């Protein structure tokens, strides 16, 4: 019961915070800080320009141009949400904030530093993190890794810097798990990628504190196309966190990232992301992990904000006894679509996957679960469990589930569970008649719905999610 109280106290503290924190805390925007932009639209010249500015080796330039060809040859996918709002012509694909990259916050240009300070990044780094990368629009502006980990051979910096410093290491992993040919948005990323992190954890190195990259998109009608690679070498252990925000604009922005995670034999990797885009962002990342023998991959994701999100983190279980779990929380507010899910591909015997997806739809917000479970022939005794829970707030909101199973080995055992709960005027009025405001009542219901997953995820993440959900509920105001 002692633990019980501290959770309650935590909740109380959060409620207090709810009253003092406003959405303006992250929806503010700075003046245009870019010192260089490739302008609007995308063509071969733009791609070559990006590569030139970055003084990239020739292999990377060629990969970019190849990816551009693939991007141009692929149609915009129509099997999911409506993507017609993406303004390809008027998007600027590369915006460079400043020349410098630094490992000292004091050297970061004032206004950009202020932004990250407002978002609490330097403070968090000091308290909780083994290392931190901060990206502003297209480029990483800051990266730092505690010396103890640097001495053990850990590499953590923005990918651009890594291409320069560790080209061979990058080459081994770049676009292996997610080739440009995977989908139109992956191809786009391949052509214009900029920023993102490169994290390499050597054999046997176990990092007990998380490492974080924070992405801040500032410009209007811009795209952010970071590419992140995490390599957990044999027997290592790492927790990598990503956070993202963007100001709110009338014109749509595009975020199309690639995340590749390689979990080698006996290694453990955890990837946590809290995405909190403003309502003008199309969020279309491709995230995938390769999980080798006896290794473990954990995806923990919270998807808030954005206009449309399509996100299906995938785990390729390549070695015997590889395991993966995927825990995703999606919140679809009014006028937004969350098309999210997970993929587990069992390629070896005794592999296990677990997918837990929780979605919340508010007003006309639409939450869709789209998942794939594949068990290849020869992947004997594979096990998988998929659980999708949906909560509908208000009597008109909708949730859809599209699970897809491809099972080619008869020894596989798998299960699907799904539940849908609806919260309407009755429930809200009942709580309000006891003194809770509408916002408090609905955020309480939402947090209650998420309680079982909140218990499984890291405390800092749970606190951040709690806070963001409350803000989100607060922002919508009239519910029910």
């Amino acid at each position, binding site marked *: 019961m002692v633990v019980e109280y501290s959770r309650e106290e935590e909740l109380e503290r959060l409620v207090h915070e709810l009253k003092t924190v406003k959405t303006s805390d992250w929806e503010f925007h700075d003046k245009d800080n870019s010192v260089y932009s490739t302008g609007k639209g995308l063509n071969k010249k733009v791609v070559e320009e990006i590569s030139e500015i970055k003084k990239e080796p020739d292999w990377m330039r060629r990969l970019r141009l190849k990816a551009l060809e693939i991007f141009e040859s692929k149609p915009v996918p129509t099997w999911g949400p409506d993507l017609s709002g993406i303004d390809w012509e008027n998007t600027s694909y590369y915006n460079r904030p400043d020349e410098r990259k630094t490992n000292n916050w004091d050297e970061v240009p004032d206004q950009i530093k202020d932004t990250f300070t407002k978002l609490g990044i330097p403070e968090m780094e000091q308290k909780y993190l083994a290392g931190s990368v901060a990206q502003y629009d297209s480029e990483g502006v800051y990266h730092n890794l505690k010396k103890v980990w640097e001495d053990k051979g850990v590499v953590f910096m923005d990918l651009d810097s890594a291409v320069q410093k560790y080209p061979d290491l990058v080459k081994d992993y770049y676009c292996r798990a997610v080739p440009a040919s995977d989908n139109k948005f992956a191809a786009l990323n391949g052509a214009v990628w900029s920023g993102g992190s490169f994290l390499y954890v050597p054999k046997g190195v176990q990092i007990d504190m998380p490492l974080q990259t924070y992405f801040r998109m500032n410009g209007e009608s811009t795209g952010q196309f970071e590419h992140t690679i995490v390599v957990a070498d044999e027997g290592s252990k790492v927790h990598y966190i990503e956070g993202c925000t963007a100001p709110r604009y009338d014109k749509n922005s595009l975020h199309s990232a690639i995340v590749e995670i390689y979990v080698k034999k006996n290694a453990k990797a955890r990837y946590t992301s809290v995405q909190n885009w403003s309502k003008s962002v199309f969020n279309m990342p491709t995230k995938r992990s390769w999980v080798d023998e006896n290794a473990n991959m954990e995806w923990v994701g919270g998807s808030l904000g954005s206009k449309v999100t399509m996100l299906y983190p995938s785990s390729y279980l390549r070695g015997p006894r590889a395991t993966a779990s995927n825990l995703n929380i999606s919140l679809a507010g009014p006028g937004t679509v969350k098309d999210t899910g997970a993929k587990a591909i069992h390629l070896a015997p005794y592999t296990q996957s677990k997918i837990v997806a929780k979605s919340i739809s508010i007003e006309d917000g639409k939450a869709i679960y789209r998942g794939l479970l594949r068990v290849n022939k020869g992947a004997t005794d594979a096990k998988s469990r998929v659980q999708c829970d949906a909560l509908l707030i208000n009597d008109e909101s909708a949730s859809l589930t599209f699970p897809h199973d491809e099972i080619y080995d008869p020894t596989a055992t798998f299960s699907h569970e799904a539940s849908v709960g609806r919260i309407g005027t009755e429930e809200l009025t009942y709580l309000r*008649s006891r*003194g809770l405001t509408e916002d*408090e009542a609905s955020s309480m219901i939402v947090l*209650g719905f998420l*309680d079982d997953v909140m218990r499984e995820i890291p405390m800092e993440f749970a606190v951040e999610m709690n806070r963001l959900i409350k803000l989100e509920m607060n922002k919508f105001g009239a519910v029910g």
Partner: protein
Amino acid sequence: MTTLEVKNLAASINGKQILKDVSFTMHGGEIHALMGPNGAGKSTLGYVMIGHPDYVVTHGSIKLDGVELIDKLPEERAKAGLFLAYQTPVAVQGVKLSTFLRMAYNQLHPDSKMKIQDFYDELKRNLNKVGLDETFMSRSVNEGFSGGERKRVEILQMMMLKPRFVILDEIDSGLDVDALKMVAEEIKKYFSDQVGFLIITHYQRILKNIEPGFVHILVDGKVVMEGGNDISLRIEEDGYDWIRGA
């Protein structure tokens, strides 16, 4: 003295006029009974008083110590001191009873310096008093509770949240004789000259345990008769026909 004054109240739901003309005045330290046949609008009155958004007030006023409540939100009315024990309490999945009550208490009594530990200790004692064990603290509000358990939890909420005007809507339904006695006991204990009660009831059963000083009879959305407890005794004998005829 705190006063609740309902005047010429009329309300509809989905365009259907349920309440047509309801007036009564209550003071702290009084127990009132609202009786009437099925479909008279008794439960509607409860919902309208707490500001349920499905109901539209078409006429009249509800004043608490002179302050008009008609335009106020449900939570504002709760803060003003109103409390409705629902006839059919609503289940809210995933919201823990203890967390809910603690948050509600903080809203209603922002100046209280009660520590969390003390609050939970009191919650445990009160659970005990209404005949429920401590495990209810960590269960979702009313979810999977039996009808009788839900009613006990309504009384528990009253005890914890400490409202000034309590409306009990058919609090006796779903309770067996012993449970009813227990609940009536707690209601009596909570009653004081600071607290007013409006007991909505179909039968006179609970009124044997708690004697109201004032009885209002609601028929077809109108208060048609008022008086002392003798009216409720007559209804026990003769039903409502004699009032309708009157």
